[in-house]
């Protein structure tokens, strides 16, 4: 079931009727501005929304020329055409045949000129609303490369991509999603590289999205995912260079007006371990950091669970010296290792959440307080053992290496602690097997989530297990179309 859009109401030739319809539609809304004027002895009106247009351009570029011009034509329709062609010398113009488009334009920073006797209007783009300037995205900082990040305005974001990919094959398809918010959404892809089957699927999903309001790209994310899962099968990026790289491989970027986060589909599990820095650094170092990230993932998910499992059930697995130290430390604690691990992780997550939402100066204070509480007071008070603090610290640092996976990691970690505490190493390994089966069952737009590891694509592995040098990568980059599931007959 999806919302049905009523057919648009056409504009009338009678100006008063048009204005009455607009006033009724907006029902006395305070920001609707209708400037009535007389042009060449004909009644006219300029409709805008307050705060959405540049005031100076509105006066100097529209009102004044409109009022001061000499019109040679006689019919109203010719006069409106003359206005657009010779009087109002503004670049972004379009005909407005119906109220639906008129309302959308004025709410997007256009002004619309209506002339009595013409059943159409003239839309003029003069966006003048405030928006954040282009800056470096805080979540995806890089050592080398561009410092530009996306902003909240969709058109600026689109231009950033266009500037980097100067090919006519780069396409933007505009959609409107949300029956009330009517948010602008742009599908961006590289014609010839994208899989038509996936493109059609994504387009259909967005067109049939039943939401009334889309205020953030996260609203659309679940509609692009094949099924609810712990791991996201939709990628996110705030970097134009990252998005361009993905588009070149045949992926589709979904821009949503009002958010700097661009959705990317299909998204594979191995992509969370790749970053733009990998391609700027030398291959051997990029390969090293990539393996570091793989290791960090396993550490952050499994380490607390394994420590609890071994410490509780198989202490003989510790080397003797370490065993004595751990045993001495644990003998002084009132809680079992599993409870300690759960407690310290919950405290850590509380501190992190508090620091995240508070203003920066207070957030720092929370961090210091958290460091003292977790690092010192908990040990001194005898609630938690020192080895456990070390494990949590190592786990927390590891999880920050792959920030995009933080959410599933935080939940899985708790699960593995419980499994390790109750079922020993067997529980942890069985849990990990179940997790692998879950990951392998996922797909992103029909492409197996674990590709190219399994199903294996050896050609693609040179950018997964290692980061080969550009001479090798440049010969044939990964194309989504080459992966199983990208073609219609694969599914």
């Amino acid at each position, binding site marked *: 079931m999806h919302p049905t859009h009523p057919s648009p109401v056409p504009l009338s030739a009678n100006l008063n009727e048009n204005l009455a319809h607009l006033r009724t539609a907006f029902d006395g809304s305070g920001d609707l501005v209708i400037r009535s004027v007389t042009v060449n002895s004909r009644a006219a009106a300029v409709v805008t929304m307050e705060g959405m247009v540049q005031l100076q351009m509105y006066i100097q570029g529209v009102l004044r020329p409109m009022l001061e011009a000499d019109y040679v034509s006689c019919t109203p329709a010719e006069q409106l055409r003359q206005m657009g062609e010779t009087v109002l010398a503004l670049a972004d113009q379009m005909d407005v045949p119906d109220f639906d488009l008129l309302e959308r334009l004025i709410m997007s920073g256009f002004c619309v000129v209506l002339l009595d006797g013409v059943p159409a209007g003239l839309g003029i783009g003069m966006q003048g609303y405030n928006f954040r300037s282009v800056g470096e995205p805080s979540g995806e900082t890089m050592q080398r490369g561009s410092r530009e990040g996306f902003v909240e305005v969709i058109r600026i974001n689109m231009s950033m991509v266009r500037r980097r990919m100067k090919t006519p094959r780069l396409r933007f398809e505009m959609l409107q999603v949300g029956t009330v918010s009517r948010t602008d959404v742009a599908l961006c892809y590289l014609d010839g590289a994208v899989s038509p089957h996936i493109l059609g699927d994504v387009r259909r999903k967005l067109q049939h999205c039943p939401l009334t309001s889309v205020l953030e790209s996260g609203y659309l994310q679940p509609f692009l995912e094949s099924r609810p899962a712990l791991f996201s099968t939709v990628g996110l990026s705030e970097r134009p260079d990252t998005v361009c790289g993905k588009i070149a491989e045949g992926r589709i970027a979904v821009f949503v007006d009002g958010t700097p986060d661009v959705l990317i589909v299909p998204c594979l599990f191995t992509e969370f371990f790749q970053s733009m820095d990998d391609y700027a650094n030398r291959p051997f170092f990029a390969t090293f950091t990539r393996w570091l990230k793989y290791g960090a993932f396993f550490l952050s998910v499994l380490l607390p669970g394994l420590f609890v499992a071994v410490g509780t059930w198989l202490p003989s697995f510790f080397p003797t010296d370490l065993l004595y130290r751990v045993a001495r430390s644990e003998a002084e604690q009132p809680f079992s290792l599993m409870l300690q691990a759960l407690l310290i992780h919950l405290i850590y997550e509380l501190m992190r959440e508090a620091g995240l939402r508070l203003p920066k100066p207070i957030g720092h204070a929370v961090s210091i307080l958290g460091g003292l509480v977790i690092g010192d007071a908990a040990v001194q008070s005898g609630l938690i053992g020192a080895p456990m603090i070390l494990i949590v610290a190592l786990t927390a640092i590891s999880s920050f290496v792959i920030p995009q996976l933080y959410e599933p990691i935080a939940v899985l970690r708790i699960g593995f602690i419980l499994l390790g505490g109750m079922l020993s190493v067997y529980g942890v*390994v069985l849990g990990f097997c179940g997790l692998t089966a879950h990951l392998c069952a996922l797909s992103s737009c029909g492409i197996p989530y674990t590709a190219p590891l399994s199903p294996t694509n050896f050609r693609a592995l040179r950018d997964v297990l290692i980061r080969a040098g550009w001479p090798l990568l440049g010969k044939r980059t990964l194309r989504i179309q080459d992966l199983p599931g990208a073609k219609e007959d694969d599914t």
Partner: protein
Amino acid sequence: MTQTIRPGQAAALLCTAAAPTLLSGQSTLPGIACGTVGLLCTAGLLCLPPRKKSLPRFFRGLIAAVAALFFLWEAIRSAAELGRFAAGTEQTPSTAPLIAAAVVIAAVWGAVQGVESLARSAVLWAAAGLLLLIPVGAALVPYVSIDALYAHIRTAEDPLWKSGLDFLAGFGGELALLGLLAASVPHLRPRHLLFFGGIAGGVALICTILATGMLGSWAAVRAEPLYTAALSVPPDSAFRPDSLYTVVRIAAHYCRAALFLWGFGRCLRLLPQQGLRRFTALAGTSAAVIAAIWLTLTPAMLTSLTGVFRVPGLLTGLGLLAGRRCAS
């Protein structure tokens, strides 16, 4: 669903499922070599193109029912064996029945995810298992005694054919599964199995040789040879091959149990009503949990039942060979 499984993935899946049997050392060293050849020949037979004529509905139903019971049994056996293994390695053996139950529950989750997911996972597990076995093997090499190995081969008690057949019989479940998969996976060819089976068999053979060379006595090798050998490394060492071996073994048992439960579910497709299928699946898995706990607590029963169930295992494999699409 199974249409998207690649032949290599199916082969890797079967080899991972067969890993517990390959690594447990249930036969003599020459017998393993002889049995491996027999195993690959049988696998090749099962992968021949399916016959056009299928069996009558009654026989298909009968074979599917036997196969369903057998698959369920194999899943239970896998869980119980891991439970017994845990009972021997854990500091608190009382948790072993819980571990056996957990294996069945985790395997149900894996089976529900589908064979496609299991096949993809198996490739990852097989690769990780091989990678883990390399450091295990490397750590054990200094402890291998060539003299002990020669002594064992000279004094092998069983005749070659008997131990070979014994080894082959241990794979009744895997062969039945192969019949089921071969009917579902297009383009599955004997060469795929030869390739992957050769790798798996070779690794198992090398592991057994290492273990035999270290332990010398065949009696010690018969049960968990690699694990027993891994214990030769001093416990004070920071590197513990036995822990890595344990991880490989748990994953392999899980894969095996999940695959057999999936096979059990496939066989239930012949049941006429969906409600009945669901009820049977639920009853079967619940029974599997209880049986796995019981068999973990009564190891003698596990051993005796293993012998009994090898015969229908092979019969099922032959039945599937005769009418390959019967259970699918």
